[in-house]
């Protein structure tokens, strides 16, 4: 194989799953038979293709090699075997400074001895851009990210969200061919994370940059990903669109990852006043959503109220079924209930005391009650 192709014809041979979705026609990044050994870490024969302008999210447990994958794409670590192509060009032996690939880490890595303005303009300075032009461009991108007033400050005086905006500005000012984000939102509080996530989405839309983003937050996948790559122990175990990952997931991992044990595929029919009816294998649930057609549904275990008698409640959903399993992790117990007609299995979480006082055992008939808003449609 002399060069990475532009059409993805190689895809079927290497790893059918790990190619970009059909909508993006051009190839951006190709990783071929990637093998690397770093200390105790080892990755063997990893293959991945990322389409031009694609937003690719990488998930996986700690130690899966996600950061090493990113740093190797950036050129920090050398491959033992394998090739990396960027827009068809072999960049395997190209040093990081000549690759045109940017990286943003969770802990910002803003240079503490430089102002925010100098940090953002750092890459332009390396390219020999004049001081005035550097300052103009830094001010422009900083303004776009809402940190225009902080250019003269030093990183130590900024909040986490502001620092991460500066780090993103510093990377995107060079208009990288690929932007690598290593858990960029993980160190931030919920509100900041949400607003920065919107910012990333906007940025991706405007700049059409190819992005590979590592995350531990399922919300990032919902709102950002074109495609999801699941890694474990140095290999890619699954690859696909958000729907594919959720619909036929590596169940155990995705379940742990989302904390949403009750994930189903269903058909959604809108009703009046913003609610809808979702049919899952014959079982009808009510949710708040304006979607219609094929959807995925997730319900967190702690949203399910379990009772032996049917509850008189305002909650829209009530199902009846048989307890098939009770598991205990020391803090709380999980009760698996099979709905009586459809066989759909729900998992509810309860404290140990709750189980004891209710006196439920396997085989009991119970009711599960939950609000329409507890049914998460995606």
């Amino acid at each position, binding site marked *: 194989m002399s060069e990475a192709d532009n059409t993805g014809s190689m895809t079927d041979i290497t790893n059918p799953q790990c190619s970009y979705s059909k909508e993006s026609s051009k190839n951006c990044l190709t990783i071929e038979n990637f093998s690397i050994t770093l200390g105790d870490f080892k990755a063997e024969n990893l293959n991945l293709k990322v389409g031009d302008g694609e937003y690719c999210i990488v998930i996986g447990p700690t130690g899966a090699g996600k950061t090493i994958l990113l740093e190797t794409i950036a*050129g920090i670590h050398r491959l033992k075997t394998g090739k990396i192509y960027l827009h068809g060009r072999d960049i395997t032996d190209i040093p*990081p400074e000549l690759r045109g690939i940017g990286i943003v880490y969770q802990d910002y*890595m803003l240079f503490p001895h430089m102002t925010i303005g100098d940090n953002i303009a750092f890459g332009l300075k390396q390219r020999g851009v004049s001081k005035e032009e550097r300052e103009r461009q830094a001010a422009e991108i900083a303004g776009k990210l809402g940190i225009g007033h902080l250019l003269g400050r030093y990183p130590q005086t900024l909040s986490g969200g502001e620092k991460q905006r500066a780090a993103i500005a510093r990377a995107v000012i*060079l208009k990288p061919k690929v932007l690598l984000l290593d858990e960029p939102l993980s160190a931030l509080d919920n509100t900041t994370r949400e607003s920065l996530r919107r910012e990333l989405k906007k940025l991706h839309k405007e700049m059409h940059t190819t992005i590979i983003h590592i995350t531990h937050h399922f919300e990032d996948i919902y709102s950002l990903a074109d495609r999801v790559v699941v890694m474990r122990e140095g290999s890619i175990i699954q690859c696909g669109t958000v729907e594919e990952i959720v619909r036929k997931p590596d169940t155990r991992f995705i379940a742990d990852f989302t904390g949403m044990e009750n994930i189903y595929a269903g058909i959604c029919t809108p009703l009046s006043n913003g609610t809808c009816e979702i049919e899952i294998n014959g079982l009808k649930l009510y949710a708040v959503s304006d979607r219609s057609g094929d959807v995925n549904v997730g319900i967190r275990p702690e949203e399910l109220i379990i009772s032996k008698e049917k509850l008189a409640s305002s909650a829209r959903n009530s199902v009846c079924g048989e307890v098939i399993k009770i598991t205990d992790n020391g803090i709380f117990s999980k009760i698996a209930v099979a709905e009586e007609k459809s066989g759909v299995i729900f998992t509810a979480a309860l404290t140990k005391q709750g189980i004891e006082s209710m006196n439920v055992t396997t085989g009991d008939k119970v009711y599960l009650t939950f609000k329409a808003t507890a049914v998460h449609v995606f």
Partner: protein
Amino acid sequence: MTTQTKHHFSLFKLLCTGTALAAVLGLIVIFAGMILYPTPADLIDCLLSEEIRFAITLSMVTALISTFLCAVIAIPAAYSMTRFDFFGKEAANILLNLPLSLPPLVAGIALLIFFSPVLSPAGGLLSAMGINIVYTSAAIVIAQFFVNTPYMIRSLRSSFSMVNPRYEHTARTLGCSEWNTFVQVTLPMAKSGLIAGIVITWSKAMGEFGAVLMLAGAIAMKTETLPIALFINMTTGDIEKSVAAAIILLAISAVVLIAVEHYGKGRGVDYV
């Protein structure tokens, strides 16, 4: 509830703190005794004497040169030991740490044999080329350099290891070459530790005695650094001059300590 928060009399605490205070008191008494031994007039005479002024200048100049040479070797060596993996790194680490626990006299005799025109081929070769090291001021620089380089490598290693390599990775992806990353990111970020390490090395060089005595000898007005001046005048019974040299060395130590405290505040400077 009061019993748990109340501070009880503790014999243990009293003994430990008492010992610490006694040690401090001991230092004060001993050094004050030395400083106050000569009359102020005698002391000023000695400090201004030609011999002591020569010793100050020689110590300063040789220490500056040897510290500069140490830095030239220690900066890249320490960086390599911090960041890169290479064959024999473990062994190199042990060897580099060995001189730290070795008396400088031992290094001195090894240097003397190496540079001796009679005892070694290397010294013989230098001698044939007209270069004589032993018993010259160049020998002072070499002795200081040889003894202090391992200290400086160790000190700078701890400074470099405090710079997260991801700063360098980020700089590289922003278009910075390896060299420029080192100059623009790593060095400035390790600056405090580097300055502290260099200042400590300089002060150690000023005070180096054993290795200098072996390789450069104790020749009045020739290889007479401050510690050598202290030694020579002691053997000839000129205690006032010895004390003058000692007071200068003491003052330098105090200034260095303050400088290091200032630059190395909270940055984990290795005082070695």
